[in-house]
């Protein structure tokens, strides 16, 4: 039995009720539906907003972060007044302001193998709005194991991908990407940046797919992957097939329960900025400042992209972007002591690995990158 709409709801959703594909029955389906939005960041923001506006009766939000200034360029569910608030609280506040007639359930915790089953069990559809590979593989496997659709969206700079992975009717995420890329090969948005409106486009498409699934209308993106590029303004589709050897949704699955996804991907399950390669090779900003003050001869190697130097830079540093480092090692002297840095310590950690494999031994990674230097040593430098 679908829920009955109140007079207020009939007025609120009148533009839906006018569409024959939705109508009273469809609006009742939306009211009876439940969707879990994993991540309330760039993708989760527009997705949750439109699901709430559309009258999806129960929306779950998973995130464990707090709202930060650097989120607001794209995470439109949050606002300046919410800086410092828990993201799930900030998002719930906005959703209930938009539509007080829905239920919003919040989970202020990392989404992990330990809690994912329990959190997701009671929702019809999962939205993958996460920012890292471990949580994407977790969300996929969880959906396969629970038999629920995974409305997938992913972004980088100007590129976006959207699909609906529903292993009961088509391929899953692992059919397309059986293994994650090795750590460091694919930059995250915290490192590589993202056009703020891009998650708006992709998240809105995810919301569209979720609404279609609930209403049972149209052609969902099951078995198709949408590739969007904002610069070219191109939308392309490719066909996705079920992989008969898929380790989770194939006929002989190896993965029959949730695994350790951070170990599987070799990276942490978040897109934060404290990249490091083990404390032995780290140096903090204050220590570095002391060593420079003492007149120690140090090579400062900045592995950021040239356009980032316009935002902040350290005097005397040599700039070799990480992507060019392998081909420009001859410009460095392995006999010199070297401190490598980037924005926040992630790319420099990879640079250290590369240098180490090339025989360099006398190098350290500036923990927290030039942003840590700006916070701890030189407040005149901006943090970005």
């Amino acid at each position, binding site marked *: 039995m679908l829920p009955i709409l109140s007079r207020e709801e009939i007025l609120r959703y009148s533009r839906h009720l006018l569409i024959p594909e939705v109508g009273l029955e469809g609006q009742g389906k939306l009211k009876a539906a439940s969707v879990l939005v994993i991540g309330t960041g760039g993708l989760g923001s527009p997705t949750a907003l439109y699901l709430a506006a559309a009258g999806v009766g129960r929306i779950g939000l998973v995130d464990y972060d707090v709202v930060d200034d650097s989120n607001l360029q794209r995470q439109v569910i949050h606002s300046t007044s919410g800086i410092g608030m828990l993201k799930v609280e900030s998002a719930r506040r906005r959703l209930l302001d938009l539509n007080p007639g829905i239920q919003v359930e919040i989970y202020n915790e990392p989404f992990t193998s330990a809690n994912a089953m329990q959190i997701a069990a009671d929702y019809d559809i999962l939205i993958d709005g996460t920012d890292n590979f471990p949580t994407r593989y977790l969300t996929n496997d969880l959906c396969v194991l629970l038999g629920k659709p995974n409305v997938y969206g992913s972004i980088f700079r100007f590129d976006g991908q959207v699909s609906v992975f529903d292993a009961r009717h088509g391929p899953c995420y692992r059919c397309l990407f059986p293994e994650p890329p090795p750590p460091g090969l694919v930059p995250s948005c915290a490192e590589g940046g993202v056009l703020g409106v891009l998650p708006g486009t992709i998240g809105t498409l995810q919301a569209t797919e979720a609404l279609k699934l609930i209403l049972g209308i149209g052609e969902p993106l099951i078995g198709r992957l949408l590739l969007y590029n904002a610069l070219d303004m191109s939308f392309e589709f490719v*066909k996705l097939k079920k992989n008969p050897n898929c380790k989770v949704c194939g006929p002989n699955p190896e993965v029959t329960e949730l695994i350790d996804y951070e170990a599987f991907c070799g990276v942490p399950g978040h897109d934060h900025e404290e990249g490091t390669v083990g404390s032995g090779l780290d140096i903090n900003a204050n220590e570095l400042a002391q060593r420079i003050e003492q007149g120690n001869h140090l090579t400062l190697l900045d592995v950021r992209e040239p356009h980032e130097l316009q935002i902040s830079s350290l005097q005397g540093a040599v700039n070799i972007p990480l992507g060019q480092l392998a081909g420009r090692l001859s410009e460095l002297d392995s006999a010199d002591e070297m401190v490598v840095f980037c924005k926040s310590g992630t790319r420099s950690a990879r640079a250290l690995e590369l240098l180490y494999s090339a025989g360099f031994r006398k190098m350290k990674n500036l923990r927290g990158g030039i942003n840590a230097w700006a916070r701890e040593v030189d407040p005149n430098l901006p943090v970005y």
Partner: protein
Amino acid sequence: MPSLRIPTPLRSYAAGQSEVTLQGETIDAVLQDLIIKYPTIQPHLFNGEGSLRPFVNLFLGEDNIKDLNGLATPLKANDRLLLIPSIAGG
């Protein structure tokens, strides 16, 4: 000549281009031509043994080359290959 669409994360290894024209009558030959023209892209596509990395998906038109004849798939002059990267941002 066949063309290959380069996704944003890999464009810095292909002189910033979004699409490159390449020579070759099979996918393998075209990729070899790509590596000759843009050597720094090589480790992003191939592993140490020279086979395509498992997270790299190449599509010919709408079809994954794994569903065709893999790297041996023959190409016609106007064929267009799409390189689909693993991206995780959200």
